């Protein structure tokens, strides 16, 4: 098979890395997938259901696991790619633990980190019992129960959009793209699980950019009675009943708003992963002002790095949803194969 002797290392075993590895293996390349966690899967491992159709995340996880189940793929877990350098025709990869791997090409798929909600001190994450992140709510969905810290059911839930995104104060000017639609999806799920619970979303803009997102947003209002208030939450505190008190500027009504909620969900955005950032510094890979990896060209070289033989897949380059991540990974494979064939 063409290219069977060629070896590609994929750095990162999330959605992009798994898809890239599967595509390359299918085309006959020998692939080593290096994953920092105990199992491949990335952030998807923590997710219960996906937007816009609320399909079980397990279906996509199952698809990706099948992609990895190929004789041409070796998976190394609990290992981090620390440095990449080009040497002659080879790309040399330094791994945690001090070992080296040689490859003909490398696809970097180190993904993203969720924004650390502690940094938005005004929301009291890590201080107030019932301030949680979207990822933690997703775990509650997986457990089958949305509840407050004391185990009782919430009667009012607030979703705070753009936590760590479009926020100059935390040096993140970028939009994380998926948080709006995630909030809509999660708000619907809360209403379905707890029909008596009121749900409010506090947003800057509703960025419903993907197919069927707008429809989901409309359904959330018409069918599920989700309330949307345009304005950022400025601070959270608790009252004597340990209920959260939030202050919001309602920018459509043009007035401040104070409201009590039982649970506040922070829609944490995406940031360049610490692993990816470390790899970029050690390897001399360029990063953009948003701190994600800078690609060769924003329009027609979006999978290409400025180091020979090194390609990018997925959210190490910018926030994107699963659909786009899979497409981006396939495009990275196309660029990699073109490079290997032309060597």
């Amino acid at each position, binding site marked *: 098979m063409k290219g069977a002797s060629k070896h590609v290392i994929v750095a990162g075993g999330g959605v992009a890395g798994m898809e890239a590895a599967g595509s390359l293996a299918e085309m006959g390349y020998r692939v080593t997938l290096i994953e920092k966690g105990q199992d491949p899967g990335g952030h998807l491992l923590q997710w219960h259901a996906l937007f816009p159709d609320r399909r079980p995340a397990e279906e996509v996880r199952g698809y990706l696991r099948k992609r990895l189940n190929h004789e041409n793929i070796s998976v190394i877990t609990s290992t981090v790619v620390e440095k990449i350098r080009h040497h002659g025709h080879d790309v040399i990869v330094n791994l945690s633990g001090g070992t080296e791997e040689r490859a003909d090409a490398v696809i970097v798929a180190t993904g993203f980190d969720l924004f650390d909600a*502690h940094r938005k*001190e*005004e929301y*009291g*994450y*890590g*201080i*107030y*019992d019932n301030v949680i992140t979207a990822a933690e709510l997703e775990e509650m969905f997986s457990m089958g129960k949305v509840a407050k810290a004391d185990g009782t059911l919430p009667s009012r839930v607030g979703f705070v959009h753009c936590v760590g995104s479009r926020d100059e104060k935390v040096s993140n000017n970028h939009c994380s793209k998926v948080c709006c639609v995630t909030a809509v999806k999660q708000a619907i799920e809360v209403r379905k699980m707890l029909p008596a619970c009121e749900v409010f979303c506090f947003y800057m803009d509703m960025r419903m950019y993907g197919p069927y997102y707008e429809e989901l947003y409309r359904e959330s209002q018409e069918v599920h009675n989700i309330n949307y208030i345009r304005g950022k939450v400025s*601070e959270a*505190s*608790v*009252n*004597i009943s*340990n209920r959260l*008190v939030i202050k919001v500027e309602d920018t459509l009504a043009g007035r401040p708003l104070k409201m009590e909620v039982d649970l506040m969900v922070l829609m944490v955005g995406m940031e360049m992963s610490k692993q990816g950032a470390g790899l970029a510094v050690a390897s001399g890979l360029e990063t953009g002002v948003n701190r994600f990896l800078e690609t060769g060209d924003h329009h027609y070289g979006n999978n290409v790095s400025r180091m020979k033989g090194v390609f990018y897949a997925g959210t190490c380059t910018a926030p994107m949803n699963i659909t786009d991540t899979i497409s981006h990974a396939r495009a990275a494979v196309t660029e990699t194969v073109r490079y290997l064939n032309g060597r």
Partner: protein
Amino acid sequence: MKPEGKKRIWAEYQKEIPDDHFFYVRSCIRQTFFAGSEQVFLKIMRDDLGKDIFEDPRHTTCTGIGYHGDVVPFETIQTVVARHFSLATEAGYKNIAISCVTSFGIYTEILETWKHFPETLERTREDLLKATGRTFDVPETISHASDIIYKFRDEIARKARFNLSDISTGKPLKVVEHIGCHYSKMFPKYGVGGAEFPHVLIGMVESWGGDIIDYPERRHCCGFGFRQYLIQANRGYSLSASRKKFESMEPYRPDFIIANCPGCSMFMDRWQYTINEIDGITYGADGQGIPVLTYEEVAGLVLGYDPWELGLQYHNVQSLPLLKRMGIRVDPAKRFLAKDGSRLPEPVGLMNE
């Protein structure tokens, strides 16, 4: 509530507070309304803690009230502050200790401006030289006086004659802490504990045996707001801001409020009287007002200073019930007696009498 979450934030906002040798700059409002606080601060520093703290009688207002009232330009206030630095330089001090939170905010604003726009520092040097013939060194450290008491809070606790507990029940007193907006909301890094959960007063209260109340309007401004109060037509804003805080803290039945800002101490004290006069409402337990104390007054009480020496008799909301709870005895005969034996003026309309 997870205390470890607050401790994590406090660990991120620790500032350098020197151990000794301070140049002290006073506060216009405090010299007028809480003169005892500044006096007892100097006494605690010199007599109880054995520190070197110097003040120069040539030091003036920082003009902060005029600056925030839009009548003093930024260039002018920079030159005034530069003159204070010049006095400190002349006396050989590199650590500034600031009594007033407004001044503290101004000093930090000016230092940050000079750091980010070095040409403004050079311009200020020229302005000061032309106006006074003086030169100055930029100080090495800027501390608010509450930072310094915070630093030595455990030493004060070791010397304490009273603690912040109710002697009849043994339970800690419930304390509302109020931080002046200009302490750390502009530049969180200059405040102990940052802007959202400042630790400066909490640290004192906990070291001295009290419990802190975390109530919904904890961060809210007291309402002074300069233009809100200085322009008579705006005073309703000032009053309503304080009222919002009182209503929010009332369910917790606080024993007293501790503040580190002259405006906050004054308005949270005086507005309780005003609200009581207008609506007949009080916010403390048993139909009483909530005493508002400066951190120096609280430190002074803990160390056993005479409440009349601290000046507590000149607060609108009197502290006698609180003093009784703490087991502090006072001599009513000396309440309005000056040290030379003459009678001091007696205010009327006091609360908690």
